[in-house]
């Protein structure tokens, strides 16, 4: 893996100019392969199985027969090229295999060879190819250069969800013994300890107690950070990065202040201390379900009435779109609230109802923009109106800040660019890809910064926050310019000193 100082950092240059193609320029990039322990723990073989070819083809057949959607996505691409310049990894690297159409064709050409009539009899005429070890290696490299952000899908005239193709490829690879270390190690920690970090209950309790002391010292208010409290109204499920990293933890403080001020009793669970669900990234329904069930079990055990998700992009996708299917029915919860609810929805509603008061002048030292997280923007909803997931976070930020500015329209909302670290790629062995993939977002930020002197970019996803902390300095920004939306809320919230 190249050291950061050896990486050729792209120049910010002109805004969103399509680069000249640079064939195979990222052919060296691949993440570490999962070891036998991490593979076996998730139900996958420990190393590449001898009959991997047959197992892979059988798995592809199984996936297409189970998912009509996947089969349609594999069949219906006409190679029109609308997606070619829409991927941040292509824009940042110039590697033509990072054009979504080309990346997905690595799987499509194999699908055609084994599952379509022309591909079986006239493979060369239809660009069908055998699955060889070289093809499998290319899958491993390039399906780990897709963050499953689905920006290309927005521009696809057929509505092909390319992330489903990447997920299928990763699931096939894990099934033949070639899973990815970063994701599989993390999923294993959720199964055994309850969160991505491997943060055991005593450490979580110590961390939360420390936060109570900090807030009391800073604000003079006894805000609680409850853990495993039976009978609380709300179970907060949040990415474990919120307990560990910066700027995430300032967001957690913001949630706690909101609950405190609104008089909502809440708790974190040490058993389900993770919102993120990396089962999505590796395409594994079984693992995704196993992790989602922890949330159900914790909700039942603690007897809560509501489940609220913290700031985590793909957690919200899994939560909003799949939680009921994976772990429902949630008929034991209070039917007056959505299941689950996003913390931004909670705060937004409290602002509307005037149950909390915000003083935007508290953030007058900041000039803020907002980075839409891909999984929130393109795969979920907030509130009751279409597009609410794009509107509510902005309304919350504007209620907390007097100086808010949006980046160019083709880089936000449903056209948002991935931070460059999503989809199970937020790992040091892919740092070159992450830096280069952040280019379009950095260009958009620079465009806005030139006009409005932006001091902070707020985000609602743990991955986005960690990724930007890492890559901002490579583009001339400061690592602490990325902040949590709920840090802005926490700082602007007018607190009363009474204890709940």
């Amino acid at each position, binding site marked *: 893996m190249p050291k950061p100082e050896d990486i050729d950092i792209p120049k910010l240059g002109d805004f969103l100019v399509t680069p000249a193609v640079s064939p195979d320029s990222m052919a060296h990039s691949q993440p*570490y392969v999962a070891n036998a322990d991490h593979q076996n723990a998730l139900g996958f073989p420990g190393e590449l199985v001898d009959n991997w070819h047959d197992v892979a083809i059988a798995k592809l057949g199984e996936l297409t027969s189970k998912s009509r959607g996947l089969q349609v996505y594999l069949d219906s691409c006409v190679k029109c090229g609308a997606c070619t310049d829409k991927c941040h990894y292509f824009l940042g690297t110039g590697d033509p295999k990072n054009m979504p159409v080309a990346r997905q064709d690595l799987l499509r050409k194999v699908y055609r060879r084994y599952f379509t009539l022309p591909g079986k009899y006239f493979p060369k005429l239809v660009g069908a190819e055998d699955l060889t070890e070289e093809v499998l290696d290319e899958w491993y490299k390039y399906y780990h250069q897709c963050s499953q952000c689905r920006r290309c899908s927005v521009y696809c005239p057929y509505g092909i969800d390319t992330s489903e193709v990447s997920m299928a490829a990763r699931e096939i690879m894990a099934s033949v013994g070639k899973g990815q*270390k*970063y994701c599989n*190690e*993390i999923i294993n*920690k959720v199964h055994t300890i309850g*969160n*991505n*970090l*491997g*943060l*055991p209950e*005593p*450490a979580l309790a*110590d*961390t939360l107690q*420390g*936060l109570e002391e*900090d807030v009391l010292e800073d604000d003079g208010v006894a805000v609680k950070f409850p853990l495993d409290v039976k009978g609380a109204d709300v179970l907060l499920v949040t*990415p*474990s*990065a919120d*307990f*560990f*990293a*910066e700027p*995430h*933890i300032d967001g957690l403080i913001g949630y706690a202040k909101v609950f405190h001020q609104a008089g909502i009793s809440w708790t974190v669970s040490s058993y389900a201390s993770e919102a*993120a669900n990396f089962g999505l990234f590796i395409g594994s329904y079984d693992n995704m379900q196993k992790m989602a069930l922890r949330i159900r079990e914790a909700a039942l055990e603690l007897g809560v009435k509501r489940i609220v998700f913290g700031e*985590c992009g793909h957690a919200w996708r899994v939560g909003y779109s799949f939680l009921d299917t994976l772990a429902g029915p949630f008929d034991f919860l209070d039917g007056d609230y959505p299941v689950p609810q996003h913390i931004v929805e909670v705060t937004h509603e409290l602002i509307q109802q005037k149950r909390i008061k915000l003083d935007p002048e508290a953030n007058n030292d900041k000039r803020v923009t907002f980075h839409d997280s891909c999984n929130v923007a393109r795969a979920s909803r907030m509130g009751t109106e279409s597009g609410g997931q794009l509107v509510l976070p902005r309304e919350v930020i504007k209620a907390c800040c007097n100086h808010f500015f949006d980046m160019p329209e083709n880089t936000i909302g449903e056209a948002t660019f991935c931070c460059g670290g999503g989809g199970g790629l*937020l790992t*040091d*062995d892919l740092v070159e890809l992450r830096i280069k993939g952040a280019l379009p977002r950095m260009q958009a930020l620079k465009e806005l910064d030139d006009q409005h002197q932006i001091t902070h970019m707020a985000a609602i996803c*743990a*991955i986005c*926050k*960690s990724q930007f902390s*890492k890559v901002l300095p490579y583009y001339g920004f400061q*690592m*602490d310019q990325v902040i949590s939306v709920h840090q802005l809320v926490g700082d602007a919230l007018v607190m009363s000193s009474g204890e709940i």
Partner: protein
Amino acid sequence: MPIEVHGKSLDTDEEGYLANLSDWAPEVATVMAESDECVLSENHWEVINFLREYYQEYQIAPAVRILTKAIGRKLGKDKGNSKYLYELFPQGPAKQACKYAGLPKPTGCV
């Protein structure tokens, strides 16, 4: 890729973190730092020692905020912040310092 410490070969993972926590000795940190062209000062050792103490109690590295608070108490308030820790450990205090301290790499969205 094992590292050599005092003529003894110690196993590490792909990223250079010790495979066996019990293999750690102060020289391990020194050798790892040397390969990063970093000379460990007393302040580096304050961080490494705190990480090891915390890990022994909780089996996990401390949150960045807990670390900065502890370092602030030991080295003065002006040093109790992430910026100072990044000066000491440019690859990130959570990861580089954990590596030198012989702890596993923090995983997740961090």
